[in-house]
């Protein structure tokens, strides 16, 4: 027993993915929490004399077209973006697991209907869905989260479903069934853990996409409204200044890369630990 734990800890130590990912993710979370209470400069106050300042000790990431400190805005933006994107991925991932598991495992008429609906959502333009949502429910970040979660669910359903179809006929599942294990237990105890590696990868992609979709949606007026900051919105605002102020796009862009990379390294590390 002792040897096992020792072994496990050894694995833990040698797992560079895990540690790198953990450090990167903790840094992001720390910045998000600090940013919620304090930023070096005001995130909304403008200054005409300090427009488009290149990165310096005064302004680590430079300033934007309104002379606002980009570092402060990235701090605030990370919080907003991580919050929105995580919720979207969690909601759609959870829905994807439940729906995909049930339909993939049981099949039948419900499977047919659910697949028709996911097909329909896949074909339906998210911009049109966004417009409908905002008309029905009004603007605000909760609607943004719901809209995006709806858009993202079908892809998870697909992945989970195909994995469940593959595994439901596996020998060990058949054996478990013969031994009288209940369906629910088979679904979530016997099959689910086996699809995590596949599922994680798509969660990470989903996270990345959610960040970008959030900025696309803010164009329609859903979600984060200026002058509040979110990484996606900052990135799309920075588009107009790529040549004059490259640091403006670079800071939120790299922040997104950092967040997604941190998360995926962490998940890779966890996956390796399990192996």
């Amino acid at each position: 027993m002792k040897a096992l734990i020792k072994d496990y800890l050894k694995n833990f130590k040698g797992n560079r993915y895990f540690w790198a990912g953990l450090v990167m993710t903790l840094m992001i979370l720390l910045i998000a929490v600090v940013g919620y209470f304090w930023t070096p400069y005001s995130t909304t106050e403008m200054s005409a004399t300090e427009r488009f300042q290149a990165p310096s000790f005064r302004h680590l990431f430079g300033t934007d077209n309104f002379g606002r400190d980009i570092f402060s805005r990235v701090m605030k933006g990370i919080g907003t973006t991580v919050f929105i994107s995580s919720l979207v991925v969690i909601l759609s991932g959870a829905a994807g697991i439940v729906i995909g598991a049930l339909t993939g495992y049981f099949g039948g008429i419900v499977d047919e209907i659910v697949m028709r609906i996911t097909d329909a959502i896949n074909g339906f333009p998210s911009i049109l869905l966004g417009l409908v949502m905002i008309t029905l429910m009004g603007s605000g970040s909760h609607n943004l989260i719901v809209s995006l979660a709806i858009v993202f669910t079908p892809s998870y359903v697909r992945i989970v479903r195909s994995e469940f179809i593959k595994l439901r006929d596996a020998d060990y599942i058949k054996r478990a069934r013969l031994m009288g294990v209940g369906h629910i237990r088979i679904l979530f105890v016997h099959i689910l853990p086996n699809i995590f590696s596949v599922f994680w990868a798509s969660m990470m992609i989903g996270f990345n996409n959610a960040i970008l979709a959030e900025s696309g949606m803010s164009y329609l007026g859903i979600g984060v409204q200026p002058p509040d900051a979110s990484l996606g919105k900052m990135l799309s605002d920075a588009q107009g200044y790529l040549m004059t102020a490259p640091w403006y796009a670079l800071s939120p862009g790299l922040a997104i890369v950092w967040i997604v990379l941190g998360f995926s390294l962490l998940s890779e590390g966890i996956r390796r630990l399990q192996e």
Partner: protein
Amino acid sequence: MKYFGKKFITLIMTLFIVSVAAFIAFQIIPGDVVTSILGTESTPEREAQLRAELGLDQPPVQRYFSWMGGVLQGDLGVSYRYSKNMNEMMPVAELIGDKLPVTLWLAAISLVLIIVLSIPLGVLWARSKSKLLDVLMGIGTQTAMAVPSFFLGILVTYFFGIFLRWFTPGGYVSYHTDFWRFLGYLLFPAISIAIPKIAMTARFLRNSMMTEMDADYVRTAYSKGCSKRRVMYRHVLRNAMMPVVTFLGMIIAEIIAGSIVVEQVFGLPGVGRLLISSVSTRDFPVVQILILYITFVVIFVYFLVDILYRVIDPRISSK
């Protein structure tokens, strides 16, 4: 045969659901094509006249069925916004038919890049015992996946367009004018689309293969004296391809349905951009057909994936 019949019926059903949903959506969202066309110059008389001209003065249900009747007879209608000449509007079939090759070729080039690069990379990665390669591939793919597509498009533009001068940013050439230059230009947007997808697919394949290699049957195969090579390609790769095929299917469907961001960054007049602009100008006939097209593509690609499944894994068809 029964299988195909069933698939066909579900296809028709889904298309119907989607078209009704889109129609209802158009009833809900604010503004219609008349407000969009007349803008701030709108007067009640012009508005009434235009509504009558476009048939928008009829009750919604009737409008839906007359549109539907047209589509069933092969008449996809005319755009509300795009002119063909001074007095006629552009037929939807012609409009989309003109934009479709751009998107299809873009999808084709991207797909070739993805398959040609990701499968060897994935297999190499899964088979390799080298720690260094593992770390490099791990970090490399993860970084490639973490870069937002808009950002990537800009980076490709800078690197290939402005730094290396291999292509002129925005210098899109229509396939009517010069097909080869058209393809040459498409290569760069295709690279932007392909990079994260290559990373994803390679990872996916590698993870999938790693799982398979631990499976009982692999051990059995080895114990039966099969060569490593044979086990790898006949058994492991074959089984590991299943989720990868689904994944590739999703990617293809996504690209054919229009890569909006990439079309935007590279100034390609493709289907994705047409959809966005048609939604914002409330060009209902165009949006409807585009949605039907996208849904059709998605379902059709999944249908092909399904058939491929049967080829790869014969167990499924027996059920």
